[in-house]
């Protein structure tokens, strides 16, 4: 079998996804046998010009990690889509927007002001902010445009497969590599992970869920056996896709939702509202309100990894609420 051409690219993400590919230990040798790495800015070489010179479809598999928030990232997404036979949205940022997607709670102006003017450690008396273009004696300099919204990769280009996770766990990467190596790829659009919610594979004992008090993980000594929701800790397991093996719940941390909505779930935030509300142990409107108040930042918690992928996609700009 001729060697595959593999590309790995990184946009709005932390870089953990690139590192996770190296986490597969000796399997990386199989990747080396299987593929020529034609582009991987983090670990290998490959210049954009080289990619541009390739014929369309010359890359067999492209692992694309990161959300899209700059015009340059959009260009690269489109370029790599054109050059790749299989484009895989790799990691939560590419699949659902991820942590960078939380920027959709703010506008571009709010972000620029905060970063360049308002933080206590900022000393910017002239009020300098980055501009897309600037005139200097030598001519015009330009930077990529910073979009108001963060987009997921599938909102920008057509994606063939999804590998979720922050970062994707080793066994899913191995599963994807094996599928590519043996040419047993699942139907297009498959999310390479579990189908059911995380609760299904979580090993904790689940009994009657009745909660009068919600707490954050640092406020409580966690019982290592019992369902975290039953202990009053907000855990996104009921709405989140499984397949991660319960990495967080296994070490007494609640699920934060990095695998995105479970199959058939349209909006993880809405499903989490339903799940959380159903365990509140009260029928008194005032007490219910009081218990609900204990949930700090519900939208940020439920959409932590998927705000751009959610039904409303971003905070409304003209909403007249605090």
């Amino acid at each position, binding site marked *: 079998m001729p060697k595959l051409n593999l590309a790995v690219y990184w946009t709005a993400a932390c870089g953990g996804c690139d590192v996770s590919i190296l986490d597969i230990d000796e399997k990386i040798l199989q990747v080396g046998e299987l593929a020529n790495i034609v582009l991987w800015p983090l670990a290998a070489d490959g210049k954009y010009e080289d990619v541009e010179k390739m014929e369309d479809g010359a890359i067999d598999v492209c692992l694309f990690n990161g959300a899209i928030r700059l015009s340059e990232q959009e260009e690269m997404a489109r370029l790599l889509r054109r050059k790749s036979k299989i484009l895989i949205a790799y990691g939560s940022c590419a699949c659902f927007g991820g942590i960078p997607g939380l920027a959709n709670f703010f506008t571009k102006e709010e972000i620029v002001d905060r970063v360049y003017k308002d933080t206590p450690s900022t000393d910017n008396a002239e009020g300098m902010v980055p501009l897309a273009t600037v005139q200097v004696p030598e001519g015009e300099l330009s930077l990529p445009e910073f979009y108001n919204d963060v987009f997921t990769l599938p*909102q920008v280009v057509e994606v063939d497969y999804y590998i979720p996770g922050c970062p994707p766990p080793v066994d899913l990467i191995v599963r994807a590599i094996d599928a590519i190596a043996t040419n047993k790829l699942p139907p297009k659009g498959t999310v390479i992970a579990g189908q059911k919610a995380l609760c299904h594979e979580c090993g904790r004992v689940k009994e009657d869920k009745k909660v009068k008090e919600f707490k954050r993980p640092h406020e409580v000594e966690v019982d290592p056996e019992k369902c975290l929701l039953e202990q009053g800790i907000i855990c996104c397991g009921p709405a989140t896709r499984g397949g991660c093996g319960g990495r967080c719940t296994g070490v007494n941390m609640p699920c934060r939702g990095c695998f995105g909505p479970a199959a058939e779930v349209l*909006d993880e935030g809405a499903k989490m509202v339903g799940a959380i509300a159903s365990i509140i142990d009260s029928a008194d409107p005032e007490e219910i309100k009081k218990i609900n108040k204990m*949930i700090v930042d519900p939208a940020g918690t439920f959409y932590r990894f998927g705000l751009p992928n959610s*039904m409303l996609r971003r905070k*409304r700009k003209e*909403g007249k609420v605090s």
Partner: protein
Amino acid sequence: MNTEFEPKIVGILCNWCSYTGADLAGISRIKYSANVRIVRVMCSGRVDPTFILKAFQEGADGVLVSGCHPGDCHYVDGNIKAMRRAPLITELLKQMGIEEERYKLVWVSASEGDKFARIVEEMVATLKKLGPFKPQGGVKKYA
């Protein structure tokens, strides 16, 4: 031509009390604004928060959910479940920049046609003041 903003309200009513209550408003020939589009569900407890977000995503200006009075639920406590969801839905909507007046959970019994009409009128008036809801998401930037 009258160009005043006419809000679109999605009214999700339970089969046993509120839908019958809205029916009674009609049978009794009580006039109320035609801004509400009614969806009948078996119980207010059936109203998945996804329905509410979906209504806003598709351009509703307000969502009105109505069930039996607490204690009168045909399924014993379906409306209590709706009641437990309401504060969290309101909070989530607020964080997404959606004014809390745009989502309302009310109790209307089968004999309260006049109350239903009044609630609709009040909501229409509030939404007219708030102005149209333009969802910012839902439409992809790229085709």
